[in-house]
């Protein structure tokens, strides 16, 4: 402070009163605390709301199994009355639940889109629709073991694949492949119920007429709400008996024919093969990223398709030292298995949900070793990359590893 300035003398209510006010600060504080009630705080409504919207677990029970096609079934799930799950969590059409299934001591998770409408939650149920995969470890088990009355443990609703009114166009185009139609069934139902005020065109690609899911139901909604819902089927098989459908994969030409590529928001959900194809078609149409919403890629089926995968490792089996809780455990890990799968095979079950590198549930710490992360499934944050954190569900070992894995919630 320069010398020529006069000394600063601040007075608020009076020199003495101000000092007195200061000296009384602590006694005022003591009195406030002394006089306060010694009762517990009131219940935290937001904590309850958070629990209702995002439960860690939901205990479900199969209420009904509906055969949809030769190879697909819908499972109607309700809250298990014998459990702490009193009501199902509300969700946004397009979201998934991650089921936690225990198969002979192996604990695995699998995300399934909810195919019923959010309003059905108030009626007490979710529906998920599953296609039996050839040689599918999990679906084989489901077909053999799941009956009405079977209890199932699930996550809360997860995922970001839903219509967002502030962001998206009111005219949306759903591009579905195979079981990917489940999201659009949920959205279509919510439109039909008058809750979601948008228009939906579904371009639904199937490899076979027999595999088309929800055909009658969606056609029925289309006829009842012709200005709001439209269904277009594209069949990629040789023999086609169905009328009025498109032939082949959902190409840029088919998209252009049914959609306004300058305005609509495109929601894409289907198997990995479809994603790999549709990316090229979307590129041709030059639709900006803003108007493309994609459901997560899913657990990578074939890591060899990524050109940057280190092929020389193909046959190798590495050793991973896993620290979980107070336990260190050494496990074998195939170079072509994700680290999460290797852990599950070794009966260590860390938390997981999306199995696509997006949700962060399995986030772990890499103490030493090298990993391969396909860029398609790399949902890590900048700091995670910098400080050696990774998602076991979308990472492959490139050497022996030492990792620290969280326990489940």
């Amino acid at each position, binding site marked *: 402070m320069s010398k020529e300035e006069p000394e600063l003398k601040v007075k608020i209510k009076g020199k003495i009163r101000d000092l007195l006010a200061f000296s009384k600060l602590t006694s005022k504080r003591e009195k406030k605390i002394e006089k306060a009630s010694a009762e517990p*705080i009131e219940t935290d*409504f937001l904590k309850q709301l*958070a629990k209702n*919207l995002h439960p860690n677990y939901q205990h479900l029970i199969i209420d009904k199994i509906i055969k949809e096609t030769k190879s697909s079934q819908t499972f109607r799930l309700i809250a298990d009355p014998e459990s702490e799950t009193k009501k199902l969590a509300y969700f946004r059409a397009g979201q998934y639940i991650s089921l936690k299934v225990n198969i002979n001591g192996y604990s695995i998770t699998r995300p399934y889109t909810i195919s019923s409408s959010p309003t059905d939650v108030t009626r007490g149920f979710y529906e998920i629709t599953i296609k039996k995969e050839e040689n599918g470890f999990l679906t084989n088990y489901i077909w053999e073991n799941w009956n009405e009355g079977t209890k199932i443990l699930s996550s809360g609703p997860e995922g970001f694949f839903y219509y967002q*009114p*502030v962001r998206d166009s009111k005219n949306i185009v759903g591009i579905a492949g195979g079981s990917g139609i489940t999201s659009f069934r949920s959205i279509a139902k919510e439109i039909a119920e008058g809750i979601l005020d948008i228009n939906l065109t579904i371009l639904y690609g199937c490899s076979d007429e027999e595999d088309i899911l929800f055909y009658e139901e969606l056609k029925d909604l289309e006829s009842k709400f012709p200005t709001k819902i439209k269904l277009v089927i594209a069949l990629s098989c040789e023999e086609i008996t169905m009328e009025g459908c498109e032939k082949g994969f959902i190409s840029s030409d088919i998209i252009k024919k049914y959609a306004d590529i300058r305005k609509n928001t495109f929601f894409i959900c289907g198997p990995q093969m479809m994603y790999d194809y549709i990316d090229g078609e979307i590129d041709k149409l030059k639709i900006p990223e803003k108007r493309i919403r994609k459901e997560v890629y899913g657990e990578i089926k074939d890591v060899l398709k990524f050109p940057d995968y280190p092929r020389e490792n193909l046959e190798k089996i590495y050793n991973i030292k896993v620290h979980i*809780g107070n336990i260190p455990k050494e496990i074998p890990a195939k170079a072509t298995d994700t680290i999460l799968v290797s852990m599950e095979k070794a009966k260590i079950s860390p938390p997981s949900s999306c199995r696509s590198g997006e949700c962060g549930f399995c986030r772990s710490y890499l103490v030493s070793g090298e990993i391969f992360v396909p860029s398609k499934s790399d949902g890590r944050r900048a700091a995670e990359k*910098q400080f050696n954190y990774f998602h076991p569900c979308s990472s492959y070992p490139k050497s022996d590893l030492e990792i620290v894995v969280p326990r489940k919630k």
Partner: protein
Amino acid sequence: MHKLNQSIEEEYDAAIIGAGNGGLVAATQLALEGKKIILFEQHNVPGGFATSFVRGRFEFEASLHELCDYGPESNKGGIRKLFEELGIDIPIAKVPEAYNLIITSPNEKLDITVPFGVNDYINCIIKEVPKSEKSVKKFIRLCQEVHEALNYIKESRGNPDKKILMGEYGNFLRTAAYSLDDVLEALKIPKKAQDIIKGYWVYLAIPTNRINFTIYAAMLYFFLIRGAYIPKHRSSGYTMALEKRIRELGGKIEFNTKVEKIIVKDGKITGLETSHGDKIKTNFIISNASPTLVYNNLIYPDSERPDVGYQFVNARRHAVSCFVLYLGLNKSAEELGIENYSYVISESTDTEKIYESFKNLECPRIQATICMNNTITDASPQGTSILIITSFFRPKTWTGINENEYFTLKNKIAMELIEKFEKATNTSISESIEEMEIATPETYSRYTGTYKGVTYGYEVDSWDSTLPRLMRMNEERYIEGLKICGGFSFQGVSYTNSLLSGQITALLTLQELMNEEGDDE
């Protein structure tokens, strides 16, 4: 089944509850001193509020706007020094201006961009309000005295010489019991200049006739002399650096693990128990969880819960929670005409009236908005930008909402906040939203576990401001071996205070650990 065989039963020098700003620093500091520590966090990532998340091609900062008291290499602030002491080095960026304050009510219209730097700040206000020169300069001198007085108290390790305080820091003492408004009025600062000075009130979010003057002056002065900074990799840039550092130093961190019981015997900490069945023996706990949660939910058994613990909580007022809209825009800030990093957009200068609007389930009448790319140019891919709009609600306001209304309500408020931003800044952003996320008090409750999603700790009225909290700290320790750090601690809310509280509680714990060892010998 897995829970049992993975659970931890061990003795530690100290256990830390919560990996927020305070907990992370406390854990690192103790590990650095060679202590055997364990840190529990109920969420699956570190940071608490200090974190980030990814949507599409955008990584959003969860809550940090401006890190106070960091400073440049040439003028290191407390936080820069703290990070150096803890051994972390992170990429960081300097915020260009303090804030662009926009008052939108027709009879109060104001649009002013306030710079950092004492002289630039004074000149900016004088230019806008020519008659304010004398009083504003006086105000800044007072802020400087507050700053120096607090430094002196810190250097004296909380035992200042009363004579020195009276002799050299008389103005500091005489203003310490008053509100920001009281002091600005007494200094006869013209109203318009007062309104400009009060811009940072959004970082405390209680009306300026209740914000304690000392705490405001200290914060403002730090911003002016050291500027503001943000980590390039968001706040997770340093929270994850700390997480890694703790592990390197031999500390243990357990995520997804909720501490359920703080075990107390005869008024002393003896250990804790968690949701995973861990049974930890320790005589020292540092809690990043608030006194509200500690005294109401955690102390075990009930007979060890002191009545005064409840009173200590009930005497105070829980501060606001936030409503934050995260926008990933598919145009650059330049293309959109977003010129500044930090905006404070308010419908009125009447902070009491604005605060009242936090009590209704309508769009709050103030927003603090940042455009990340105007500090970190490459915060998002080229040709895109990130805009984060923050507003506030009182913790009770969201009570009674049902689940299916919740999403509609969020979107409605978000839409209005966007409109208000567009109108105030004369920009158009709603057509450029590529990614968005909305966080409400429910979101903060879920991710951080704070009571009712409260973001800003306890309100800092003069009787509950940093100074009286510090002066009564020893008396307000109701359980031996337990200390509280973080946004609800003695330091008061803010990133800077939370971080520093972690270090202080760790050093105090260390002292007690040393005394204990001394006793053993």
